[in-house]
């Protein structure tokens, strides 16, 4: 049964330094509040897995939380580069970052294999690309047809963190809209933390593609309204596209990045204060 906890306690108790952490959310429902809390608590040496590192991992990489990044697309969606990610890969700042990169299909297959209790997934992909020499894939042939395919190793994070719209009081989690690989990432993980917009008596499907994670598949649920900002939570908030655009300028140089992180994350005790600071700035 999932325990309903504060975000601070959940991150403090369940995310050890050096862990392999997956924080998923495909543009929608990105668990930013949890990422900020890991930064506040000074987590380090993490292996960060995420299909799209997005601004959340740009911030964690820039603040030195990550030893390694496992990913498949490292851009600022609709805007351009992730400058902290690039600075780490191109210049080893703030320290060298080991990378393991896949295609989206490969990462999705790795999570699905992990959620299925299989050591590998099979797909039609990577063929003819230079990724083959630079990532973890293997040739596998069909025992019935002899056809050559590609195998990817399953991905089983130590901790998966996601953001969802709802949890009920028993800790069952409900989400809808674009749900990406979150279900697989949670089911593949040893430990899971879910931040939610609201805790309700009964889960209710308020949009397409209603996905439910039973309480007994989740370790901790932390109520964090607005916990996905600047990403969004369908039915609760809209994507702060202006922020994603501003992030390009904020993150482009090391000093302005450090200043922003100090003011908005290190300088705020929790996510509510962060949201208040963001709102002030908009005025």
């Amino acid at each position, binding site marked *: 049964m999932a325990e309903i906890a504060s975000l601070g306690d959940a991150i403090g108790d369940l995310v050890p330094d050096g862990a392999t952490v997956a924080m998923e959310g495909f543009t929608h429902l990105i668990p930013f509040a949890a990422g900020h809390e890991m930064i506040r608590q000074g987590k380090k040496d993490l292996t960060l897995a995420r299909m799209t590192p997005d601004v959340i991992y740009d911030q964690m990489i820039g603040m030195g939380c990550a030893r390694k990044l496992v990913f498949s697309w490292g851009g600022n969606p609709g805007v351009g580069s992730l400058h902290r990610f690039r600075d780490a890969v*191109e210049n080893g700042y703030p320290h060298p970052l080991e990378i393991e990169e896949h295609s989206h299909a490969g990462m999705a297959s790795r999570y699905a294999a992990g959620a299925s209790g299989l050591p590998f997934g099979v797909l039609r992909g990577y063929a003819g690309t230079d990724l083959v020499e630079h990532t973890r894939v293997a040739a596998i042939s069909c025992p019935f047809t002899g056809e050559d395919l590609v195998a990817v190793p399953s991905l089983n994070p130590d901790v998966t963190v996601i953001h969802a719209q709802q949890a009920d009081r028993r800790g069952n989690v409900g989400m809808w809209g674009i749900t990406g690989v979150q279900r697989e990432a949670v089911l593949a993980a040893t430990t899971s933390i879910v931040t939610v917009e609201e805790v309700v008596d009964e889960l209710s499907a308020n949009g397409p593609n209603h996905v439910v994670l039973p309480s007994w598949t989740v370790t901790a649920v932390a109520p964090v309204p607005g916990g996905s900002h600047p990403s969004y939570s369908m039915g609760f908030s809209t994507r702060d596209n202006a922020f994603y655009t501003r992030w390009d300028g904020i993150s482009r140089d090391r000093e302005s990045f450090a200043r922003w992180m100090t003011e908005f994350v290190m300088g705020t005790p929790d996510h509510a204060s962060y949201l208040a600071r963001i709102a002030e700035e908009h005025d």
Partner: protein
Amino acid sequence: MTDAATSVGEYTSDEMMTVTAARCLRDGQVCFVGIGLPSEAANLARLSHAPNVVLVYESGTIGTRPDVLPLSIGDGELAETADLVVGVPEIFAYWLQAGRIDVGFLSAAQIDRYGNLNSTVIGPYEQPDVRLPGAGGAPEIAANAGQVIVMLRQTPRSFVAEIDFITSLGFGRDGRGRIGARGAGPTLVITDMGVLKPDPVSHELTLVAVHPGVEVEAVRRATGWELLVADVIEVGEAPTPDELAVLRDLVERTRQAHSG
């Protein structure tokens, strides 16, 4: 941002590029679409001559009909207006890999003469000069879509003789072909200057059409290798007033929706 600079008459070269791509889509085709020009072209087709084109985004939204262009692949409107929304493992396994996609759109930082695409690094992989975002859905779109339409502005820096990294397979570094891939690969490369198609035998990209007012010589200069040119070069048809009206309306709606 190159629009103003490359403006030709009363439409921009990017508009010409988008319109040209949109015209390549037939009604009812199933298209796997990324953000940016491909999304613009596919939605223009849907809002003009191909109302039943099926748009699939890698975020798991199938048959989506956004009123404005998404800024991100996961914008809420893609889910709200979709026939169905599925998880990301499923979109790649049951939908793309299974061969249900007729046309996949791709762009990249670099393309070579055999239609191979690079969106990973400029320079050596271990010590890159520029670290690009990476593969995303591209390698499997290139491998499994029925055909691939590449949209890319044509410059010597993007059309290169030696590609730094093959992120998505065209016809291979030697042009020999597509071992391990089931789709036909890049059948069309649409740029802001014209249209290229792979030679049926050698698979080398060949200029087959230029946009109105574009000189073949200019296209050669914008290409990092000795460009093959078809014996007969077509000149693309300028965007019609209707096409421009629908496109600009869409872009304006989008600008307003995403501002602030």
